[in-house]
Each structure stands twice: as C-alpha cells, then as structure tokens.
C-alpha cells in the first residue's frame, strides 16, 4: 500500500538575520499520521512549522501540501500557534476567538454569519468549553485558553493540523482532553503535526516522530526510530529515556 504524502518539504533552509536556524531540511509527512517534532530549544521546531505555513520566508527550498504550494492549499491547513504568541488581554470572548477560525473560508470583507457561529459553537462543545463561550479570554485558565485555540483550529475543518506546543502550561485534564481530540482527528484520516517537548509521552501519544536539531536527524514511525541513538544525536549528550513498557 502506498501512503499519500500530505506535506513534502524539500531542501528547506530558514535563517534569521543570515544565521540559519534550519539547514537543508528534507521531510515527508505521510497522510494520516500523528507526528511529534522533537528537539532541544533553538532546534528550529516552531520555525519549521512557520516556514511551512508561509509565516516565515525560507531562504531556500520548497514546501508543498498535497503536491501544490501552500498558497493554493490554505483551506486544507489549520494552525495552532503557541499560546504565548497572542495577547490574552485582547478585548474578545472565547466564542469570538473560535469564530476567527472561520475567517479563512470567508475571505476578505465578508462577515461571519449564523452558519459560522454554529460551527464555532460545535467546536467549543468538542473541546468542552461551551459553558465558557462568552467569557473574556483573559478570564480563562491556561488550559482553557489552549482548548479555545484548539477549537479555533477544529472549526477550520482542515486536513492537516499544525500545532506548536499545545501541551505547554496546561493541566493534566486538558492534556488528556487535547490528546484524545488529536487521536480522533487521526482516526478521521487527518494529518496532525505537533511540536512537542515531553519526550516521555512521545510513544504514548504519537505514532510518528521527527527528530530535529537545525538539521533533520531522523523521521519515521515511533516504534522504529524512537531510540536512545536518535535521542543522543538530537540532544547532543548521552540521552537516555526510559520508555514506558
């Protein structure tokens, strides 16, 4: 059986002020995987996602989503940025933030209507945040804010989801709620790519993993490549995780 390639990254190099943070990355992300991107701080994990989504301009290389450029495939892709990337004191409600996920399908000028509102409410329901729909976003806990972000991505009804550290600073309940939703997405045939920090949970949460440290170290199924050898190559020191049985 030949698996479709959801995201194809060729020779991607990204630099901040001429200092490369990603060197010549070649990466294929097969359709329907739940992939963790792991690597030390400054390895370029977030940068990789941002370059794929066109938020950062690479100095070399190309990215294609199902064989076409990102600009043509926008509607297939949803993105959950790091929670800290926005100002949570912004005057708006949880529902309104989720509605923002529908803006892409609306295009310029057109306003969200009943249909978009309904979709947003459904997404809030899925992440268990419906009771908080009218709450101002600064009045939400860190875990609740992360769920609102997840709902905003769900409402886009995309094929590929990119998430930048969705488990950062959330409580255990939220972490389980989020991973369950991600697993549901995979079950529905979606591709999910997650920048992840906690190596201990990689085998439990993900079926695919990419080791990244400025260069790509390895990519493949967790059961084949999540081992001390790759961890040491990625993190530099003699790294050993006790993988739970």
């Amino acid at each position: 059986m030949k698996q479709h390639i959801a995201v194809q990254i060729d020779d991607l190099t990204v630099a901040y002020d001429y200092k490369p943070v990603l060197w010549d990355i070649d990466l294929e992300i097969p359709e329907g995987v739940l992939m963790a991107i792991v690597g030390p701080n400054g390895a370029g994990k977030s940068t990789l996602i941002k370059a794929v989504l066109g938020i950062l301009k690479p100095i070399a290389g190309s990215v294609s989503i199902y064989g076409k450029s990102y600009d043509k495939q926008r509607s297939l892709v949803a993105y959950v940025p790091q929670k800290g990337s926005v100002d949570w004191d912004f005057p708006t409600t949880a529902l309104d933030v989720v509605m923002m996920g529908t803006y892409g399908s609306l295009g310029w000028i057109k306003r969200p209507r009943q249909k978009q509102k309904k979709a947003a409410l459904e997404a809030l329901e899925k992440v268990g945040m419906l009771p908080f729909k009218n709450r101002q976003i600064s009045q939400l806990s860190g875990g609740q804010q992360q769920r609102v972000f997840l709902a905003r991505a769900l409402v886009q009804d995309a094929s590929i989801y990119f998430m930048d550290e969705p488990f950062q600073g959330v409580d255990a309940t939220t972490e389980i709620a989020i991973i369950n939703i991600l697993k549901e997405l995979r079950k529905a045939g979606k591709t999910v790519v997650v920048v992840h920090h906690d190596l201990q949970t990689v085998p439990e949460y993900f079926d695919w993993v990419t080791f990244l440290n400025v260069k790509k170290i390895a990519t493949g199924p967790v059961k084949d490549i999540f081992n001390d050898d790759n961890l040491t190559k990625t993190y530099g020191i003699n790294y050993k995780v006790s993988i739970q049985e």
Partner: protein
Amino acid sequence: MSSAQIEIQLIASLVAVACAIPGVFLVLRKMAMISDAISHSILPGIVVGFFITQDLNSPLLIILAAITGVITVVIVEYIQRTGLVKEDTAIGLVFPVLFSIGVIMIAKNANDVHLDVDAVLLGELAFAPFDRLEISGVDVGPKSLWIIGFILVLTLILLTAFFKELKLSTFDKGLAATLGFSPALIHYGLMTVSSVTTVGAFDAVGAILVVALMIAPAAAAYLLTTDLKQMLVLSVLFGVFSAISGYWLAHWLDASIAGSITTMLGLLFLIVYLFAPSKGIIAVMYREKQQRTEVSLLTFLLHLKNHDEVNERHVNHLYEHINWQKVRAKNVLELALKNNMILIDKDVVSLTKKGEEFTSKAIDYIITNEDSQIEDMKDDFFLFRG
C-alpha cells in the same frame, strides 16, 4: 451659541471620532508611540505641500503629509529590524529628525505666511471657522470641517469593511498570515489611515493633541470593556465628550481650545483609571485586599481542620499560633462567623459542616488546580477569579 462656536465644536468632535477609531487599534497593537512619531514627522510633508500649493487645506498637502507619515513607520521598522536598537529608541530617533527638518524649512522660508511652529504643535481651532469652503460662490462651511468629515467617512467605510481583518491581525498575526490575510497589508493600511487622520486633524488641533485624541480615549475604553466593538463605541464617545467639554472649558478659562481638550482627555482617563469597575486602580486594590483576607480565612480554617486539640482552637491561642495581629485575627474570625463556617463555644472555635466542606473543596482546588471544582465558588470569592 454662535454659528462659529457650533462649527468649532463640530470640527473638534469629528476630529475626535476620526482619531479614536485608528487609536483603538494602535493601543491594542501596543503602538501608541507610533502615533506620536507620525504626528510630528508629517511636518516636512505639510511644509513641502504648503510651498507647492500655498494652501493649508489642499489635498496634495494631505497626500504628501500622509506619505511622510507612512515613510516614518517604514524607517522606524527598518531601524528596529537591524536589531541594533529597540523599537522605542528607533521611534525616538526618527521623528525628531523629520520634525526638525520641517521646523527649519518653516523658519527659512515661511516667516511671513500663516504656518508657524506654535500652530503646528497646538493647532488653531479657534480660527478654523474663518477659512471657508465656497462652491460656485456659495459658502458651504469651514474647509477643515469638510476635510475631517471626508476623512472620517473614509475611515468608517474602511472600518466596516475590514473590521474582521483588523481584529484578526491585531489579535493573532500568525493566524492572519496563515489564513491569507496579509498582516503587512493590514498594518500599512492602518498606518496610512492613521497618517491621513493625523494630517486632517493636525491643522485643527495640532501635533500634540492628535496623539492625545488617538490614545487617551482608547486607553480609557480599554479599562472599561472586554468587547472590541464596545471599546470602539466608548472611545468615540469619550473623544466627543472631551472635545465638547474641552471647548467650553477653554471658553470659560479664555484659554487654548486644544490645551483644554487635552486636559479633559487627561481628566477623563484619570477618572476611569481610578474608578473603572474591574480594571480600575481602586477596584484592583479592593480585590487584592479581599484576596488577602480570603487567604487568611483559608489558613485559619485549615488550621482548625488540622487540629482537634482544644488548646489549639482557643480564641486567644489563635493569635499566637497563626502569628497574626489581633485586628487581623478578629477580622478573619468575624468573616468566618458571618459565613457560618465556624462556631465559637466558650472561646473555643470549631468548624461547622459548611466550613469543613468549604475548606476541603478549596484545598482540593489549590492542589489539583482543576477549574470545574471552583466554578460555583467564583462568585463568592475573589481568590478564585482570574
């Protein structure tokens, strides 16, 4: 009221509204200082335009000045991107240079025309009604009223059309970019509108008041609401209120209109800053005091829960054991009594059932930090809000 008085108030109000709208987005984008930069650095644009047209209200002058405004933003961002200086430093470097070029140009060439540095800084609202617009010989009102009116209509059209885009790119630039709404395009659109508004308002109220009209109403509204549309409406109302009350203050004091409007803006912000219901300084202080008391209460209840010994629960012993001064201990004791959380029997304190339940629940929450446990307690206790 004479018609000139009405016209002045009308111009001041329209200027206030036209400034308040971009001001809201500047404040939310934490770019308040950029409006200061724009308002000063458009001066060379105005001067050059004035030399060409000899008319302070010519559209060419507005266009030239607006371009200077946008150039300012571009230069500031360029300097900042080099990473050698921070944004506020970049702003502080760029606008004085452009402003002083304007000042020198006025001093060298325009000594005998109606364009002096005082008017540039503070505006001359009082003279605005004298410069009339005539269409085929018919007087249709002051020129500045038409200019700011036109700019305001344009701003309102853009705001209505691109409200969604402005909101999205202000809140989350990254998402805006991935959804195909170029944040750069929206950013420079906003900068252009801010520049045009500044130029339009400049002649009437001067460089300093333009900044105040953009920032103060939005900053005050920000403290009062958690809804962007409401914030826009409140900013507009605050702007108009300050414009009209400022005019009458100036009338009463026989002082500068621009100065009086700015004073009203300052006072208005001060009042909101002090008295805003949830974000105001008094509300915050009150909340912090309540939270301190509630923490004390919880400490006290927990102490009772953990100690069965009578001597640990004796009223007099409590002062020593929890290390509190008498007044504080008395306050906490009264609060607990008022909420039926304790019973005092012969100076020995014990928890009631309610007190027991409350303590376990609160401790549970603090340990697990699970939100669902605490939702129903939020209304009664500050401690568990936000």
